[in-house]
């Protein structure tokens, strides 16, 4: 009887300690903050992702883990593991309306896969209406690959077969959320067929490669293409993705997801930048001509400093956009910074022009 009592005490103590340790604390890694700031996604030291309400952090709930296929040990075969067992931090993207969360998970060898979560209908107060469940019962990644394979008349089993060194390529990654949260832009790419190792050595070769940009439509629950994506996919398959000009974006770049009903061609960021740059040159010259000698030198120094700031802004813009097309995104950042600079200089020019 005494032993049972001690055991019960110990058990209670153990459970209490576990709960204490399970509260959000500084060791949990903040992955993302929801657009309205209502909650954060945090990763705990045991790999689980928690939804932590900003107002009541103790009301946290767990984002359910799912089974994913990985090859993290460079082996020639794949294995299925729980998504929360992956060592690297997942990357989480919350839709603008906060009804969807896309989680990109490392699957080894530089590859990633994705899990889409949907917010369950609100039931009661507290943390209950914060629950999210996987959006697809058969696996979001499989559904995405099924769509791409159908388009390319392939079977998924032919995509991403590892070679004897465990090198493989089958990746699904985030592109962007549309402003209306109705479309999630994804990129899927990988090798097709069995690998062949050349007799003379060197890297393995596969039959072909596949790459496609697709949308997941959250309103219809189906994958789809628009003319914008078809054009980008066509540019990619024609091998026009590489650009040597540092001010030219990738031809297959898609930087934003189209809202439903607002489908349009991808605007050219290169043209946008060139236009802004020409306007800046024009405005700068006009302003320079209106200044005294000392002021001219000051403006010239300021412009040199601004050029460095523009490039840093563009790098930050590209980094924080998480675009699969960093060059195009960087040029977009340069265009945005230049447009702001034009507005600034025009403001300074106006009083001079008026006088």
């Amino acid at each position, binding site marked *: 009887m005494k032993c049972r009592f001690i055991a019960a005490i110990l058990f209670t103590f153990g459970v209490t*300690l576990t709960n204490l340790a399970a509260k959000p*604390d500084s*060791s949990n890694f903040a992955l993302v903050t929801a657009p309205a700031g209502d909650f954060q996604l945090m990763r705990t030291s045991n790999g689980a992702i928690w939804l932590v309400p900003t107002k009541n952090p103790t009301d946290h709930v767990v984002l359910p883990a799912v089974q994913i296929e990985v090859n993290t040990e460079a082996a020639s075969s794949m294995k299925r593991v729980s998504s929360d067992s992956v060592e690297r931090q997942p990357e989480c993207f919350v839709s603008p309306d906060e009804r969807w969360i896309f989680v990109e998970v490392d699957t080894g060898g530089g590859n990633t896969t994705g899990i889409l979560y949907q917010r369950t209908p609100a039931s009661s107060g507290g943390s209950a209406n914060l629950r999210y469940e996987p959006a697809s019962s058969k696996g979001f990644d499989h559904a995405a690959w099924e769509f791409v394979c159908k388009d390319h008349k392939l079977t998924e089993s032919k995509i991403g077969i590892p070679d004897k060194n465990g090198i493989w390529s089958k990746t699904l990654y985030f592109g962007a959320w549309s402003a209306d949260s109705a479309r999630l832009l994804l990129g899927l790419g990988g090798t097709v067929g069995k690998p062949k190792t050349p007799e003379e050595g060197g890297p393995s070769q596969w039959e072909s490669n596949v790459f496609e940009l697709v949308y997941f439509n959250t309103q219809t629950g189906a994958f789809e293409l628009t003319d914008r994506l078809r054009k980008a996919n066509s540019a990619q398959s024609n091998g026009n993705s590489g650009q040597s000009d540092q001010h030219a974006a990738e031809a297959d770049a898609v930087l934003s997801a189209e809202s439903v009903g607002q489908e349009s061609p991808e605007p050219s960021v290169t043209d946008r930048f060139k236009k802004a740059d020409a306007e800046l040159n024009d405005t700068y010259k006009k302003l320079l001509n209106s200044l005294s000698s000392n002021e001219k030198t000051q403006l010239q120094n300021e412009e040199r400093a601004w050029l460095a700031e523009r490039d840093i802004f563009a790098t930050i813009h590209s980094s924080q956009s998480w675009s699969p097309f960093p060059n195009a995104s960087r040029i977009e950042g340069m265009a945005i910074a230049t447009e702001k600079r034009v507005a600034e200089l025009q403001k300074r020019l106006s009083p001079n022009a008026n006088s």
Partner: protein
Amino acid sequence: MKKLSTLVAFISLVIALAHAASSFESTDDTADFHGPDVRPGYPDLFHIHFVFPKDTLSPNGKYGVIFPDRTLGEMENDSLHNFVVSLDPSQILAELDTESPEFEGKSHGGYEVEWSEDSSVALITLEAKWGPGEFFLIELQDGKVSRTTNLDKKIRQLLEPEYRKTHAASSSDSSDLIYEYQDSETPFCKLENATRVKIDAYVTNDPKGDNPRRSRLQATWDIRNAKFIQQRVTRLSNRQEK
């Protein structure tokens, strides 16, 4: 049954204690950095994929250097950047203009950041295979970077004439020169307050060769005027003369 209850309780306790311990693990060597311009609902790339080593912090605790983590390190070079940052407000102040950025776990990589006592100047060394690879001098004023000097390029410009003399028949240029440590304890470049950089650099064209050509540069860089105020290049004929 009693034994089983006790065992279950004991295991629970051990698991709870282990979990509690791992939850409070802290990274002693790195600090948190949150990047600017985070998109609503998107992760902060600088928080997730950059490391901020505490040994890069300025004496006033306001500035530091961030490097890409292993995940970014596995990506193509175009995605890799090294930044000088400020902490409050959280800003990216400058990017190091390097073709071989440092990143977590880089093979033959490494870095050294030396700050002046007043935190107005940072001397950043990026390591390479045989020794230091590049040197950057960062000058700060009013929370902004007022000037970034690629000291490595300036050093190579000084060495260029000597190199041309010894390599007359070669089409190589000074970018083929490799810095080579004499001993890992002696830095090539050292700050003298916030005013000067003392340089004592050994270079070679072939660190592994039997008959490499070696030179030594002893110089002083005047930070304020951004120029060398003292310089001496000595040709060393073989390893023994180092």
